[in-house]
């Protein structure tokens, strides 16, 4: 039996070995190394830290070591994970849709298809919001105005090419408007975008629901639609699809193993994450953070990544960004 100290002192291969034994029965992993290609405090970091808490609570893992390598939506961290973490069977990277977009927009030669997909875990729906006094009552009102003259409907959101911009591009495309024609006003984050929306400087705003939640509760903003496939518990808004706009977008997050891990290591990791995803501890975490659980593992997840890369790449091209 390896002690924690021996494992930490030893090479990563030992970590892999201990996992080999774990695949059949739910044996505890001594040390899980997590790679977060973003700064502490952001969505991926919160995911990693929530995973740490839930994995410990369910006794699936004894210790977790988190490494943050922030920058450019993950484009700085990914090369490091690909090269320096190669073949480490006890390592996981947290990443998501934002990385797919930022790799394409930054014309990186790398892609998320180069790492080993383990599981998609959570998704955050985007919300389309307007100021309290806006003439738009439904998402269709908004979409019709967009169709009539996209230049007259300025929409606030996060940085260009991000999830918010992509959703606006998708809505425009669904309405038959060229995505490159949209009048997108990029702000440096949900906070400033919300302020612009509160001051009615823009016609509408798109961001993760969490950014607008406080203002919606205070009655200063109205949510017209959410971008998920189904309605979300606790959010009083229909989906875009219900209102006749054929668009669905989740800001999803998941975990990946490094390239070069063997099948046994991959299966062990997948089994561990599947157990976690089914636990009530993880369900509680997701409820508290207002994340929707959209677990997807194995080959299906790999296929999803490939599709998502094509889909996001297409809309970024039409927005004139990739």
């Amino acid at each position, binding site marked *: 039996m390896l002690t924690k100290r021996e494992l930490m002192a030893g090479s990563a291969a030992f970590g892999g070995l201990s996992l080999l034994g774990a695949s059949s029965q739910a044996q505890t992993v001594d040390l899980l190394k997590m790679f977060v290609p973003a*700064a*502490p*405090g*952001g969505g991926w970091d*919160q995911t990693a830290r929530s995973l740490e808490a839930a994995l410990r609570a369910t006794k699936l893992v004894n210790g977790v070591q988190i490494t*943050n*390598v*922030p*920058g*450019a939506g993950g*484009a*700085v961290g990914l*090369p490091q994970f690909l090269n320096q973490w190669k073949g480490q069977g006890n390592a996981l990277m947290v990443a998501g849709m934002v990385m797919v977009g930022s790799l394409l*927009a*930054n014309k*990186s030669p790398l892609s998320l298809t180069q790492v080993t997909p383990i599981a998609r875990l959570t998704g955050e729906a985007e919300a389309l919001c307007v100021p309290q006094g806006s003439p738009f009552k439904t998402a269709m009102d908004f979409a019709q105005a967009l169709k009539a003259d996209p*230049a*007259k409907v*300025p929409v606030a959101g996060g*940085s*260009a*090419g991000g999830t918010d*911009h992509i959703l606006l591009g998708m809505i425009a495309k669904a309405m038959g408007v060229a995505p490159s024609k949209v*009048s*997108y*006003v*990029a*702000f*440096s984050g949900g*906070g*400033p975008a*919300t*302020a*612009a929306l*509160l*001051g009615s*400087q*823009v016609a509408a705003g798109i961001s993760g629901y*969490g*950014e607008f939640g*406080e*203002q919606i*509760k*205070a009655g*200063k903003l109205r949510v017209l639609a959410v971008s998920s496939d189904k309605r979300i518990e606790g959010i009083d808004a229909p989906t875009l699809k219900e209102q006749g706009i054929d668009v669905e977008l989740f800001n999803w997050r998941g975990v990946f193993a490094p390239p070069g891990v063997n099948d046994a290591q991959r299966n062990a990791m997948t089994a561990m994450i599947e157990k976690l995803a089914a636990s009530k501890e993880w369900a509680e975490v997701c409820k508290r953070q207002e994340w929707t659980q959209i677990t997807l593992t194995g080959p299906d997840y790999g296929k999803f990544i490939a599709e998502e890369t094509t889909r996001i790449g297409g809309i970024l091209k039409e927005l004139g*960004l990739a």
Partner: protein
Amino acid sequence: MHAFEQLLHGFAVALTPVNLMWCLVGTTLGTAIGVLPGLGPALTIALLLPITFKVEPTAAFILFAGIYYGAMYGGSTTSILLNTPGESATIVTALEGNKMARSGRAGAALATSAIGSFVAGTIGTLGITFLAPIVVDWALKFGPADYFALMLLAFVTVTAVLGSSAVRGMAALFFGIWLGLIGVDLQTGQARFTFGVPELLDGINVIIVAVGLFAVGETLYVASRYKSGTDEIIPLKGSLWMTREEWARSWKPWLRGTALGFPIGAMPAGGAEIPTFLSYFLEKKLSTKPEEFGRGAIEGVAGPEAANNASAAGVLVPMLTLGLPTSATAAIMLSAFQSYGINPGPLLFESQAQLVWGLIASLFIGNVMLLVLNLPMIGLWVKMLRIPAPLLYAGILVFATIGTYGITQSPVDLVLLYLIGGLGYLMRRYDFPTAPVIIGMILGPLAEQNFRQAMTISAGDWTVFFTRPISATILVLALLALAGPKLLGFWQSFRMPAEPMGGDA
């Protein structure tokens, strides 16, 4: 009345022994780093961010706010006694304060700045308490076009402080703007000036530039001149009690400085520097003895010192109510909120009442502590300035390096830090001002983004800057500030030769 009750409740939180201790630690540490040139509140709070994993949020923010307020107090001591601003917000204080100290009135200068800081800090904190909701409504009326006009006004006022050589000042300002443009453009997602280095895609952190210029550059400069003598610390002379005349000349500048500092601090990119400069020029204009300015006028210390403390209070308003950081320090405090999973916003005052009101009450308590720390105990801080320069600056270099690495753990940032530090040394050596670099780096990209946001919203119609009442008003002010002095000079030079000729002017 509601705010008053909440405030009382806040005092109950802030007056617990643990929180009092954090407040004392914060204000003491803040004064110390304010006194030491090269260390600022942004750097210090960044170094202390890891404690957010161990300490409960109320305590952490009481500590951070104490550091922020304390630095504003401590910075003036160094400006007055050493003629080296301890903080960028106390650059102006050095202009008159050091002259006062040289003429044996250091005590009065320190007293007027400490009492002025106390008055402004207390009024500013009262402002947060009662005006925060009103300020929010008012600030929300500002759209991108209005912000752009505000940036233009800021640029115009900045040109007034570029130093003796306008060319050097402009070079520094535009270098700062260029630094600010590095990275992915917000509006189009395209990389600019990144030279294929992925670490540059997110832009250069303003903290690294500030630390590089102010800490590393300063250290190199001091080291290069060490043999040829060190800075002269003016001994503490003159009574710490102000005379009746000094009181009479101080109280109005305190109030005017507060009136300038609080609202400007609350505006994005307002910061602490602009109101201190505005206050200085306002006092110079209003003074009955303008000839004293440049030789040690007490108004020139009282006004700007009140302005910088009031702006520190002002900065907290948009940060707490909107989650909008308007200074580097506030940006770092915001990341501390985020690491607790707290989203500052209009509902923060309700959802985190204990935290917010405890923090506000601690600001009142902190102000009293700071007055005590900075007047009766001033001798202690002066002694700190006597720490042998090699030890002090070596220490600063170590902290600057660790602190920078601690922010991102990126080796690229360390290389940048020393590159910028080397440049900072050259700038000091050849008499280029360094403050405009930081101002340009913060204001330049903000002005650009606001301009383009305004243009997107107006669908490309540039008249939006003149048709919005707020924007138009600010632009007229900017034009007056720019052309006013020149027109006046032109008119006078036109009149003078005209008179001997017996013209009807």
